[in-house]
């Protein structure tokens, strides 16, 4: 029988307070996830989501809310330890957290570049490495990159270069982890109605573009048995 490969599994979603991460958390609950770790910085949106998810989860589903800034490598290490010290494997890792401060190179600061890299590249790298070195056996890792990482664009140099790096990291890990039976996918959403998109395109009407739920449907498809037939080395998701 065909499986969604989500039911009764353990998953971590980073950037889990809003946008694609929040929509994916709801979807995972519907699909019968066993244990869900959500990681995000503290915010009113995160608190509101936590209340909603507590209403939505069934009694045999566990959600662990982690308040953490993934730009801080010590917080990433703490998250790795927390997951590694719990019982069972982390089956699914969704590296979804993203940061951007779009500026031309004339105006961008090194601090902005560094924070962009820390959230978009270093955090996924350290989460995967930390858990692997503690012996975790992943079923599937999905990195959420961006079409901005496939071609640089004026004013987005920090964001584009961080996402390009995430795409390349995914390609390398796809080969490295294949012998362990771990699938590594990378998706590159185009414009999608999230808070991050509002930073990139403040004047755009978000109702006219792709919604987080659309990206979520693609992610759950990739996790499913059907997803094995799809080339997800760098899958473009766009309206």
């Amino acid at each position: 029988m065909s499986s969604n490969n989500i039911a009764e599994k353990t998953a971590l979603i980073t950037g889990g307070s809003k946008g694609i991460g929040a929509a994916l958390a709801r979807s995972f609950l519907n699909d019968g996830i066993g244990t869900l770790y959500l990681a995000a910085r503290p915010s009113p949106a995160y608190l509101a989501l936590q209340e909603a998810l507590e209403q939505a989860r069934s009694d045999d589903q566990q959600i662990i809310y982690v308040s953490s800034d993934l730009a801080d490598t010590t917080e990433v290490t703490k998250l790795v330890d927390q997951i590694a010290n719990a019982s069972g494997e982390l089956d699914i890792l969704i590296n979804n957290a993203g940061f951007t401060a779009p500026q031309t190179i004339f105006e961008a600061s090194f601090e902005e570049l560094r924070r962009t890299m820390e959230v978009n590249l270093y955090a996924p790298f350290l989460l995967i490495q930390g858990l692997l070195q503690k012996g975790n056996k992943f079923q599937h890792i999905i990195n959420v990159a961006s079409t901005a990482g496939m071609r640089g664009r004026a004013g987005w140099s920090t964001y584009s270069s961080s996402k390009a790096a995430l795409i390349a990291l995914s390609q390398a890990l796809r080969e490295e982890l294949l012998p362990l039976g771990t699938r590594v996918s990378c998706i590159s959403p185009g414009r999608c109605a999230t808070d991050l998109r509002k930073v990139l395109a403040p004047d755009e009407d978000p109702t006219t573009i792709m919604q987080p739920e659309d990206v979520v449907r693609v992610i759950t498809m990739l996790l499913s048995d059907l997803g094995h037939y799809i080339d997800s080395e760098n899958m473009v998701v766009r309206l």
Partner: protein
Amino acid sequence: MLPKEKILATKGCILLSLILLNGGIGSRVGADKPKQLIRINGIPIFIYALRVADQIEEISQVILNFPPGWENEMRDLTQKYAIKTPLTFVEAGTTRHESVALMVQHVETEHMLIHEAARPLATVQDFKLLIEHPQDNVSLTRPIPFTVLKKEAGTDKIGGVLDRDLLLNIQLPQKFSTATLKSAHAAAAANGEVFTEDAALVFSSGATVHYLDGSEKNFKVTTLQDVYMAEYVMGGIKEHMKDE
């Protein structure tokens, strides 16, 4: 998750130690470091066998030899690659024969396995064939697909024809009764004999050794060409080969 040591299934499960032999300095592959640190697809070659051991609950311990000076680096790599089976590190002897004689002293199980790191393509199934085999002493082998002739000692003349149907190419892993292997090594030491591998040693000591047909894939990585070949075989079906 993540126990520090492999959780051993002790109920009805016969445990075996695995001796994992590592070669000397890899002069043939052209690297100026020990052969076990040669990398296949970026991964140190000896890690492959340890990953297989991690998947076999019957393997309770792996005994590895290390060339003098390389213990720390090997220990560090086994931690980074999150190897779960308990490991015992033993300094290598001057020959393979001597290394096995030293390592077998650390075996605590009634039966044991011997493998070499230079065969990174050995699978769980290869080991299971031996573990489940009813006999005490068993080696994987391959048929010899080419013609073999004897030399006449001390001359440039052919000295005889060998029937390849009666010859075997010895492969690893192998399984032995620990007591039999220990006494065979003791006898060899007493007689001053040195063997290049242990099926020959145990046979020469008078014990019965059985053979099983191993897999063609489980070849020994000796030359740089073999490294490329192993990477190719491990890569499985390449993307372009999936297309019509």
